[in-house]
């Protein structure tokens, strides 16, 4: 009567799982690098003096932050081809990740920039730097350091959110789980193992981001 669990039926497919993990990691890496890059640009614009650019970027940020990632993904993958942009599942998933994280990091980094003491900006200006130079050399690094924990959390959230990319058949970890349970008919076990793998990925990602932060914001012993 009682259900007997059989996890070995999942581990028979460990190569599929591994493949899925790799794709999830890859998606997350692309999303992070380009998403945070986009966020820095977005935040720079949001703190610039151009009103029109600010309006455009905040429209983008609000649009993304107030709609589900899944719908963004569907829109990009199913909707954009109607305009002639045909993307593979992987391209669509990557693009969605970048756009999504880009919006959140714009908001997070903007807050970091706005916390810059006004005096430091004035000190830079008084030395003859222009606004771009002040941003690049004075504002951005301490701002990134300030918001690194918040940004790291958001990156983890986006990594976990990438599970829905399976819905457009991007072959990441959840897709692997779907595949496995369709073969072994062990849905619970397959998703349970996958969940644990996500948890491990989240913990590992947090650790890596912390290391990256320590490295990036480390005080160099000599300039």
């Amino acid at each position, binding site marked *: 009567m009682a259900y007997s669990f059989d996890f070995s039926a999942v581990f028979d497919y460990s190569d599929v799982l591994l493949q899925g993990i790799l794709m999830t990691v890859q998606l997350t890496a692309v999303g992070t690098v380009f998403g945070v890059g986009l966020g820095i640009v977005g935040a720079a614009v949001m703190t610039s003096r151009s009103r029109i650019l600010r309006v455009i970027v905040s429209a983008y940020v609000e649009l993304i932050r107030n709609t589900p990632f899944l719908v963004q993904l569907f829109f990009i993958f199913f909707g954009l081809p109607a305009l002639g942009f045909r993307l593979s599942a992987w391209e669509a998933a990557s693009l969605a990740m970048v756009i999504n994280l880009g919006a959140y990091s714009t908001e997070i980094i903007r807050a970091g920039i706005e916390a810059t003491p006004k*005096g*430091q900006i004035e000190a*830079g*200006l008084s*030395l*003859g*730097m222009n606004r771009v130079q002040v941003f690049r050399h*004075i504002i951005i690094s*301490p701002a990134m350091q300030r918001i690194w924990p918040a940004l790291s959390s958001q990156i983890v959230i986006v990594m976990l959110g990438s599970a829905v990319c399976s819905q457009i058949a991007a072959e990441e970890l959840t897709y692997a789980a779907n595949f496995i349970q369709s073969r072994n008919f062990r849905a619970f076990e397959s998703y349970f193992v996958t969940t644990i793998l996500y948890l491990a990925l989240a913990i590992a990602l947090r650790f890596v981001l912390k290391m990256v932060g320590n490295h990036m914001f480390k005080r160099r012993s000599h300039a």
Partner: protein
Amino acid sequence: MSLVKLQGIRKSYGSNEVLKGIDLTVNEGQVVALIGRSGSGKSTLLRTINGLEEINGGALEVDGEMLRPGHTNLRALRMKVGMVFQQFNLFPHLSAIENVMLAPVVVKKQNKAEAREVAAACLAKVGLADKEKSYPDQLSGGQQQRVAIARALAMQPRVLLCDEITSALDPELVNEVLNVVRKLAEEGMTLILVTHEMRFARDVCDNLVFMHGGKIREQGEPEQLFAAPATAELSQFVGSVAFH
């Protein structure tokens, strides 16, 4: 020879006119102190000379660089005018020497080796040769302020503006900063300072400018000004500040 020349400078914040037509000439090598009650417009005046505040009227000239209302190219002006702030405003992510090197490299496009040499000399000048690698939060307030002075000096400005640069310091740290300023004065640096250190002003400055309500009320040599204030405002002000 006049180095800094202000003519009819006006500045308002909204409907509040803070500078009501300031005329002031500072000659090369002169040390000028701006004194006056809090809110009289001293900081605002100093900041206009660096282009940190846009002026609404009048004209400003520093070593041949003109500045008029609506002017946006401030770089040339700022390369000639150094500024030291009350709150130091060091860049927290850079070591002392990097703080000093940054502008020469970024603004003047000096190569790093050269900039480092200049920066090291500037730090040595303010007595901090041994603190090159320290970060701002590892330095005392007095040391931070001296790094800030070195940072301004590294751009080789024609005139240095100091806005109450000892006001944020613990009393025992005031002198190490004032001594640096005194040394600069002796070397012939043109200085415009806002200060509440009246004894220092009397000893070091050539010219004292008393501001009141956004105008220059009196100016002249310190001894003479302190001994015989011509206006009630100045005598009241002199009476209210301690000479320590």
